[in-house]
């Protein structure tokens, strides 16, 4: 009789209790699974965000003028001045703004940028349909994959917002990142639609050599104290820090769920060992060592949680798919990603929880005096 077989049979004694505990553990693991999938998804999203963004972001320092839809803004002529700083390859004034389409189209991000500057971002992205924007375009838009699908618009169709009609020049292939939610329009057109004249929300800089980005940042702040320059890598780091904060919250929430699961498992295993006190006493009297009894209970607990963990992974996978589909349909971003790492971590946690939950009841029953166990009523 193998310990594993024996443990499995013991778990089958109280089917309802074991079943309910399995369900509790499965739900806790499924919950953790979904949260891990969200972490994986957001991590991928941040990685993808590297595609969108400059080496240096320049904004007006605090206290500048403010306009609804544009935020604190600065004159786009700064771009010409900034382009003159040694080491700057491109200086592009941009307007970055969220917008909702006029005809029930979902929320999207609009990037106003001169098409020749936009090559810095869009240069390596593939056009799925139509063509890229050129400097000759006015009321034309280049749509990311997701925003084009969400609004069922193709190249040649119209896309309208704030009463202006844009012809869809082209749509991009899927990147899986935030670029999929962006619409690119010429800066001058965006400025005329918003009525901001030659204002921009930011100026994005690309440098010849990334090593020099810090030097360029301090040069800008020395020359133009009214501006605030931030390295792109810093923005990414801030985003990652924000994501880490989100991860920390998810770990805490998942931890609470797992703690509840662990307590349920510990309760079940403790109850089960208490009920079988005489049986353990008999086993010890027949020659089973303390270690054998300890291992038996520990294996039962670990098996219980491992089976619960496997069920939880299945539930979690289905849950992640459903939640991912829902969020993707709603906001257009895939923030849920299931990788091989997620079920491996989930199973690892389930096994650990099983071992931890089993230690106390295993220790307790294996230390009990045989005669006391045999006398137990």
């Amino acid at each position, binding site marked *: *009789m*193998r310990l594993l077989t*024996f443990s499995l*049979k*013991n778990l*089958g*004694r109280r089917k309802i209790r074991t079943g309910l505990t399995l369900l509790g553990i499965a739900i806790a693991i499924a919950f953790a699974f979904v949260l891990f999938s969200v972490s994986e998804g957001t991590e991928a999203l941040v990685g993808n965000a590297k595609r969108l963004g400059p080496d240096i972001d320049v904004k007006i320092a605090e206290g500048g003028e403010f306009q609804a839809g544009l935020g604190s803004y600065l004159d786009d002529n700064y771009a010409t001045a900034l382009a003159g700083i040694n080491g700057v390859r491109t200086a592009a004034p941009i307007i970055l703004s969220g917008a909702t389409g006029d005809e029930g189209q979902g929320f999207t991000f609009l990037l106003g940028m001169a098409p020749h500057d936009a090559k810095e971002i869009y240069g390596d992205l593939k056009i799925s349909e139509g063509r890229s924007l050129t400097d000759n375009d006015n009321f034309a838009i280049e749509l990311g994959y997701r925003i084009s699908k969400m609004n069922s618009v193709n190249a040649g169709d119209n896309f309208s917002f704030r009463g202006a009609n844009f012809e869809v020049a082209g749509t991009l292939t899927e990147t899986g990142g935030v670029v999929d939610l962006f619409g690119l329009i010429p800066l001058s057109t965006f400025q005329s639609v918003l009525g901001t004249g030659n204002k921009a929300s930011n100026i994005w800089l690309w440098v010849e050599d990334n090593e020099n980005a810090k030097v360029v940042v301090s040069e800008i702040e020395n020359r133009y104290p009214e501006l605030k320059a931030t390295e792109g890598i810093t923005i990414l780091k801030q985003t990652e820090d924000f994501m880490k904060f989100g991860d920390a919250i998810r770990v805490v929430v998942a931890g609470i769920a797992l703690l509840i699961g662990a307590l349920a498992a510990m309760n079940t295993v403790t109850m089960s060992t208490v009920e079988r006190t*005489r*049986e353990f*006493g*008999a*086993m*010890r*009297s*027949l*020659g*089973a*060592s*303390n270690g*054998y009894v300890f291992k038996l209970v520990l294996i039962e607990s670990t098996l219980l949680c491992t089976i619960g963990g496997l069920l939880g992974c299945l539930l979690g996978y289905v849950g992640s798919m459903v939640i991912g589909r829902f969020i993707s349909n709603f906001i257009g971003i895939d923030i849920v990603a299931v990788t091989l790492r997620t079920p491996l971590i989930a199973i690892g946690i389930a096994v650990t929880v099983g071992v931890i939950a089993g230690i106390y009841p295993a220790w307790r029953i294996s230390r009990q*005096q*045989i*005669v006391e166990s*045999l006398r137990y009523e």
Partner: protein
Amino acid sequence: MSLVELKNVSKIYGLGQARVRALDGVTLNIEKGEFMSIMGPSGSGKTTLLNVVGCLDRPTSGEVKIGGRDVTQMSVGELNALRLRKLGFVFQTFNLVPTLTALENVELRLSLAGLNGSEQRRQATKLLKLVGLGGRLKHRPNQMSAGERQRIAIARALTNDPELVLADEPTGNLDTTIGREIIALMRDLNRKFEKTFIIVTHNPEVARTTDRVVILKDGKIAKEERKEKR
């Protein structure tokens, strides 16, 4: 050399005013192949004596030798090994594992002794046939009568070929007829295989079937009766 030697064995439970002297200077020798019983009123120390001989409990004082070895000085590991290889237990409430079949219940102790799966199966089947359960190998305890359950317990006690089988009220949960059958089975095993049986019982009829009856009172041997081996 006797199989079991007890010299001036005492067992005291509790402290101070609550001290209970469960065994009080018991000296007793049990020879290999004996079929004996221990009787006495409730609280006389019968089960305590069985527990001390069965190495389930250590005496407060005195000497206990099994096969010439002083078990009071043995470590927990040595006692486990001794119980596994040399002793067998039969309980009033059978103490079988309800989720295991008759065969698996017997195999369990063989697995503790390190036998491989096929050898476990072979020996367990042989022992269950010996106690008359050859046709009930795959049945679980709850599918069997009380008498059959006690037969499984006896087969389990005989695994690893023990020299001594200790039975604590083995007929206590059985009706008279089945109880007689169980005692007859034990007697048969004692005669055929020269297994030593110590049976704790309240039942004078059971005691009458044994070759020697030790009567305890207040933790002391009050009387001892022997009869000629048949």
